Each structure stands twice: as C-alpha cells, then as structure tokens.
C-alpha cells in the first residue's frame, strides 16, 4: 500500500485508451466497473476532443459479481462491435476486473467476431499509464504485422540507392505533450531534407497504416515511453533501425538529423536548422541575464532529459535538479544527472518533488502540471514541459516542442516566467520609486504571481540563533526583492556555519562573496 495524494500517471488501462483514442477504426472493450468511465473526460475536457474515446466499458455492478460478469462482458463486446463496427478490437481489464479473473481476452478471442481481437494484460497493481500505452501499441502492432507476415510474402527489396528514404514516426498519442504539433513540425523538417514519412502511429493511424510500418527504412522513436518496446521489436523482426535521438531542442534536432543521415546513408545539409531563432535569441545581449539561472527539471523521462540539455546548453541556465516519474527511464535519467553533477530524483511522489524544489529554491521550474502548482505555492516561475498537463497545455495555436519551431517555442515559453532582462535592470535602478516597491509584481505577470517577498516571509523559517544587526538589516532591504530571500538565507547559512550569532554588514558582504558565482 502506498499513500498517493496526487498521481503523475493514471492506471495502465488509461494508456490503452490513449492508444485506442489516437487511432482510427480501433475500439477498446474495457471490463471495468462504473466510475472507470471518468477516463472519457480526460480526452473530452483536457484535450477538448470532439468525440468520446472509442471505449465501451462493461460497467459491472455488485449484482453482476459472480457468474454473470463474464456474460456481461461478452454481451458488451458484441454490442460494442455491432454499434461501432471497428476494424480491430482491443480487450482489457481495468484494476477491479483484473481481480475477477474473467479472462476477457480469452473470452473475446473465442467470440467469433469477424475482426482481429487483441487481448491486453494491463497489470494494474504494478504498472502505470505510459507502460499501458506502450504495451497496447506493441501488442497491436505485433498482432497486425504477425498476421500479415504469415499470409503475405515479404515486400520486394527496395534496392536502388537513389530511392527516396522514408521513416515512421512512432509514439505520438492523444493526451501526450504537444504530440499533434510535434508531428507536424517533424514532418515539415523531414520533408525539407528530402526524407519521406511512411507512417505516423498511433496518432491518426488506422490498421492499414500499421500494416505498412515495415515499408519504411527506419523507425523514429519520438516518444520512447510509448514507442521504444515497439521499435525494438520492429528492429528485431523487420531489421528496421531505430533513430533514438529525440529532436527536442536545437542541438538535439541537429543530432537527430545527423543520426538520420548516418542510418539512412543520405546527406543532410546543416541548412535544415539554420532558420531556428533560438541560437541568436540566446546569444543576444538581453539574454545575458539568463546566465546561470537555477533551474529544476522534472517530467517524463524523455522530456526531462531533452529539456535539461536545452536548459543547460542552449539557454545558459544551471540545472540544479533533474528527475522523472518514469521509472522505465530511470537509468538514462540517472546517467544524465550524473553528467550534470547531480543525483537524479526518481519518484512518483509529488510530495518528495515539492520537498526537493523547496530545498533547492530554483529560479525556474520546468515540470508537469504538478510542479506548476508546487512552483506557484513557492512563488517560483514555472513552465510546463511534460504530462500530466492541464487544459491550458493543449493550446489552440501551433506550439510544438520538437524541431526548429519547437526550439523557438521553448525559448519563449521558458523566458516568459522569468523577470525580463531589461526589466530586471530597471527594477534594480528604480527600486525605491513609489511604483517600484517590493510588492509590485513584474508588469507582465498577473496579480499575485510576482509577490516573492510575501512568499519568502511566510515560508522561510529563519535560522534560529542568528541575529541581524540594524545596519545589516537595512542593507539587506536595499537588495532587490526578487533576490533578497536568497541573500538572506545564504547569509544566515554562512553565519551559522561559522558559528556567528550576529550578522553585521561585513557578514552580509562576506557571504555575498562566498556564494557569488
């Protein structure tokens, strides 16, 4: 038993629904009690889907328990088929049904439906949403391609070296982070370098598309949480190499193109990314103030790692914390954290994350919806980089994270919560001005988001036994409010470590020199 107040991921069957809802002509029959239908609203409310996800729930009740839940499942399966006429049926248990052991997969396979039925084992008591999506995608692809391999001949060798190379883009799903826009951006990028996109899946794919997957020269594993298992299987069974670099960030997009060029043995010009604005925006003088901003990064494995690289190398921030809730990606995240001189935070307990953020006191948090709330409580700027995300993270405008335009979007999105460069300078110059007092929020932030001092005053427990002398306290107040909390804390820590009981102006400036970067 594990106490969970908020959860980063849903149960595995929600991952199965994400895959089904992403595709065309696929329907999921979920053996589940009433109440589990809440999953519909994730799609229709958070992503504003205009269709219910293609799921039929058996919604069994107490009176059905015993002999009749299996029968209820079979009736539901038939009704779902008759009503929706899918070209493929997925069948799964939710957590409660798993305990009933009705074996809906076996029941469905013997039901004699005229379409392929893919049974899924969702392991609700040990696994979570992204794993469920990954398993579902893998079993679906395997079922479609295995049936085909048995009945059809292998496609003829595609020989010629002048032939246009194609790749599949695998892993985008409904309720993923900016998948819709990422796919559009990566398709544009590939087109600009003369590489074709054979199939995108699961998002907007149908069964026919799935059956065409082996025709591509390679698989791009865009969202490893969902697609890596499938990509690995395809590599083993169809000899399709996997492109593992996720093109999120300017450098990663360059690396992605280089990997493509190597694997596909084609020339790709560096011009492909030349129109990206991030490098110049980051070099322009206004961005000087971004230097060394302390950033905390947390999300799913892929987004946390790619964003940490962007933060460090492309924005000039200092990554002071890196973590993920994706246990499947823990090894890679740990390795990257080690390179950054950090210990990775691998947890799905948001209280542990909150503790880490409040101890590290970063100036910016790049995280999920959970970290957005944590940061808001602590009065720290935040940009959302990963699911779980809320309705505002599914914007109307084109807003990819990947590729050339994605890098531009990252620059804008991450700079926005910080105090602007010139504005920071002006705040410093005019801090005694009647309109530039400690409690005035930065003009571009809405009311209540910029009141750092209020947060500092309420939340920071002063180190006991250290006394501020009048002069030092007055001097402290001359420090701009948005860094004053840190200065105060550092000075107190400095004094405590040296066994000082009183802080005078000298102590303040000694501490400043000690902590200056």
């Amino acid at each position, binding site marked *: *038993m*594990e*106490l*969970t*107040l*908020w*959860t980063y*991921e*849903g*149960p595995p*069957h*929600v991952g199965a629904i994400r895959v089904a809802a992403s595709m065309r002509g696929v329907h999921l029959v979920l053996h589940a*009690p*009433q*109440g*589990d*239908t*809440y*999953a*519909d*609203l*994730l*799609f*229709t*409310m958070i992503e*504003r*889907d*205009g*269709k*219910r996800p293609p799921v*039929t*729930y*058996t*919604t*069994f*009740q*107490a009176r059905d*328990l015993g002999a009749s839940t299996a029968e209820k499942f079979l009736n*539901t399966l038939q*009704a779902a088929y008759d*009503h929706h006429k899918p070209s493929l049926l997925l069948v799964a248990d*939710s*957590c*409660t049904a798993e*305990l*009933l052991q009705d074996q809906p997969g076996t029941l469905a396979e013997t039901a004699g439906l005229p379409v392929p039925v893919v049974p899924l084992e969702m392991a*609700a*008591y*040990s696994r*979570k949403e992204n794993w469920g999506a990954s398993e579902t995608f893998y079993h679906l692809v395997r079922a479609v391609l295995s049936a085909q391999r048995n009945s059809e001949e292998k496609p003829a060798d595609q020989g010629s070296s002048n032939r246009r190379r194609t790749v599949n883009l695998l892993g985008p799903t409904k309720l993923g982070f900016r998948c819709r826009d990422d796919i559009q951006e990566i398709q544009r990028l590939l087109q600009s370098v003369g590489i074709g996109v054979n199939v995108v899946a699961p998002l907007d794919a149908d069964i026919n598309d799935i059956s065409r997957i082996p025709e591509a020269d390679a698989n791009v594993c865009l969202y490893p949480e969902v697609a890596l298992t499938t990509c690995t299987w395809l590599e083993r069974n169809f000899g399709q190499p996997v492109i593992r670099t996720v093109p999120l960030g300017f450098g990663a997009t360059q690396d992605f193109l280089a990997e493509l060029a190597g694997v596909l043995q084609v020339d790709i010009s560096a011009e492909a990314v030349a129109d990206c604005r991030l490098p110049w925006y980051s070099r322009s003088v206004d961005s000087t103030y971004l230097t060394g901003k302390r950033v905390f990064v947390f999300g799913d494995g892929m987004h946390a790692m790619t964003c940490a690289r962007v933060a460090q190398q492309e924005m000039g921030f200092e990554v002071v914390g890196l973590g993920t809730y994706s246990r499947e990606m823990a090894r890679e995240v740990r390795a990257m954290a080690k390179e950054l001189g950090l210990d990775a935070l691998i947890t799905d307990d*948001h*209280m542990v994350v909150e503790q880490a953020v409040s101890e590290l006191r970063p100036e910016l948090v790049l995280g999920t*919806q*959970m970290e957005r*709330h*944590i940061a*808001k*409580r602590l009065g720290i700027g935040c940009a959302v980089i990963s699911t*779980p995300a*809320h309705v505002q993270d599914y914007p109307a405008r084109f807003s990819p994270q990947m590729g050339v335009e994605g890098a531009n979007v990252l620059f804008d999105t991450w700079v926005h919560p910080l105090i602007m460069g010139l504005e920071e300078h002006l705040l410093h110059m005019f801090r005694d001005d009647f309109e530039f007092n400690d409690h005035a929020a930065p003009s571009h932030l809405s009311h209540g988001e910029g009141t750092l001092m209020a947060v500092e005053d309420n939340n920071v427990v002063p180190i006991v036994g250290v006394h501020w002398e009048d002069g030092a306290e007055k001097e402290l107040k001359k420090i701009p409010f948005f860094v004053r909390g840190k200065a105060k804390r550092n000075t107190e820590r400095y004094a405590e470590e040296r066994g000082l009981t009183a802080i005078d102006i000298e102590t303040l400036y000694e501490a400043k020199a000690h902590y200056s970067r």
Partner: protein
Amino acid sequence: MTAEVIAVSDSEVVPERFQPVQERGQRAVFCGLTSIIWLHRKIQDAFFLVVGSRTCAHLIQSAAGVMIFAEPRFGTAVLGDRDLAGMADCHDELDRVVAQVLARRPELKSIFLVGSCPSEVIKLDLDNAAGRLGRVYEGQVRFVSFSGSGIETTFTQGEDNCLASLASDLPTDTTAEDRLLVVGTVPDIVEDQFRRLFTQLGIGQVDFFPGSQSTDLPAVGKNTKMLLAQPFLGETLRALESRGATLLPAPFPLGAEGSEAWFRAAANAYGVAEEKQAEVLQPPLQRARAALGKYRTELSGKSFSMLPDSQLEIPLARFLARECGMTPKEVGTPYFDARVMAEEVPLLPSGVDWVEGQDLDPALDRVRAAKPDLTVCGLGIANPLEAEGLRTKWSIELLFTPIQGFEQAGDLAELFARPLRRERALEVGSWS
C-alpha cells in the same frame, strides 16, 4: 409576474403515471468516490482515505480538475501486487498509511476509510479496520468507514453512504425538545441563509448534517425532524430513522417553488402560523421569482434532455419545467428512490420519457434524434455532443455550485441559460 412564474397549472402537471424505462447497459457516471470532492470541502477537520487502486486516485484528481493548490485532505492508499498476495498484510499496511497521514496532518479529527471496487472485491473489511484504528487513536481521531465503490455506488451515493455511516456515531438526543436536522451537504453560504430563515420562523434548534466540524456532531433522537436538502440520501434517511428521527416530506429546495414548499414543510411541522410563514417567506420568495422571471423569458419553450448522473435530475426537471417553462424530452436518473422522491413525483410534468439506469450508446442516439435545445450530461459526454451541434450543461457543476434555496434560484436558472446565451452570442463554429 408572480402568477406568470408558475404558468403550468397543477392539473396539467400531475403525471398519469411515473414508470421509468429501466436500462441495464453501459453507464457513464462517476462512482461514489467523487463525493469526496465536496465532502472534504464541507467537513474541514476530516481526511478521506480511499483504500483502492491508482484508478481511484486518478479518478478523484481528474474529477476535481487537478486543483492542487493545497495539500489535499484526501488521498488513496494504493493497493499493490504485494497487498493482493496476502490479506493479513493489508491491515498492517493500512495502519502504516494512516500513521503517515496523521504524521503529516496532526490536526485531523476524523479519518474516513473509503472502500473502493478493488477493496470490496478482495473483501478488505474497512469497518473492522475503522474499529481497530478508532481504539488505537481513541480520544484523538474518529475513524469511520463507508463505501464509495463503483460496483455499489454511483456518484452522489458516496455522500449517502458517508452520512449513513456517520449517522450511527451521532450522539443520542435525550431532551424533550424538538430539533430540526437538515440532511445533506450544502455550501456554507446556503447553510447561513437557511439558518436565518429558520430563526425568523421561530424554529430554534437547527442542525446541519454534515457540519463543518466532525467533532461537533448533531444529536439525534425521537424528537428529531429531518428535512432532506439533497435528493440522494435514501440510506442516510433510513439510518437516521433507525435513530428515531422522522422525515418531514417535502420537495427539494431547488427553485422558488421547491424552496417555499421545503420551508413550509418545516414551518407546518413546528406549527408556525400561516401569517408568520408568509411574513418570513414572502420577501425571499418574491426575490427568487423576480430573478427567475428574467430567465423564464430566455428558457421558456426550450427543450431539454438529461442523461443520468447525480440524482438531481428529477427535482431539476420539475424546476426547469414548472418555473422556467422548459419542455423535458428524455430524463434519465441513475436509480429511483420512491421514498425520497415522493413529494417530487406529483409535481412532475407529463409527456416525459423517464429512464432509470443507462445504456449509453442507444441513449446518445436518442439524444441525437430528439435534438433537444439543451442536454444536461456528465463531463465526458458534453464536448462530443457540442461537437455534434447540441448545446450542453455539465452536470457536475450542479454539485459544486450553491444552487439551493430562494437566493440561488436565479443562479440555478443561469446555469442552464448560459449555454443558450452563448449560442446566440457566438458567430463562429457550427452549433446551428
């Protein structure tokens, strides 16, 4: 204006029969765990600990809209493979999780252990656990268990089970004095308005159940008279009756008409003179009617369907038909409790297709065919119907918003009028 509000005469609205069609197909309703979202806001010193799966945790946070502004006073003890292997372990694990909750929140006065589908299927005895933990934390924390599981409860039934369970913990009233007990969660602002009116009517001893403090439970006994503030409290009603309380039959306090009848039921039981009743109730009644008059112009003649959701469907259909002049087409309700709805049924309009239970796909097909001006439905269904050109009102707002009583009658109508006004306002998209 007054006469115009209730334009449909009584002879027309008494249904010749109320025989809902029963459906036993796919449901699209929340389970009882969802009640925790408003129960924990009301009972401010309590923690709701669901013993269940990740699905339970995900459901509550999704239904709550991921409102993570404070550490929540609810959580889930998520069962894992290890717990399912052996039952003895589960109780130790639960004790450990409870200790963890109390270490973080030492100020808590009550912990509700909430059963879920998985905990019921594995027959985890939470009553027993509540008893054991109650002895461990005797004098500090009260432990109460109830089921919010989807195999036993739908949506608002979670509150019913919670209050029914708490009913046995209420102290026994041994005085000879009459006490009025208002049963069902209402927002604080509504509670305050109701208290003022009861005081003006001269009804002195009034308790609200649940109140904001779980340590301050109302006494109950044979002199207790109950008014139900919510239409989903059948089990709670029976539990309180077993403690000696008697029900004051009344429609629910929704709309001007429902609110008046509800207060009059109490006033009559307390022998408050007619002149006094009129003197106290007329001013808020007139205000409510005036507020509704504006909405009646907007809503009159519009048709609506309701998909089964919260058990509020029957009193709301009555309100929309009689006070807003709307035409009900199909109205579904998760289940029908004849006792609780006894005073509503005679007020219901005729010509309505009533459904008890649900079979989602055919029900949606019927909505598409009927093309009502407004469909009241759950969150999962609203946008898909909008995308098909139908206007909707999500029903969960009816649980989170103050809608009861005279002063909220206009606000209640506004909830239904707004989607229609938005349709008139927007010149983009394809609702027409």
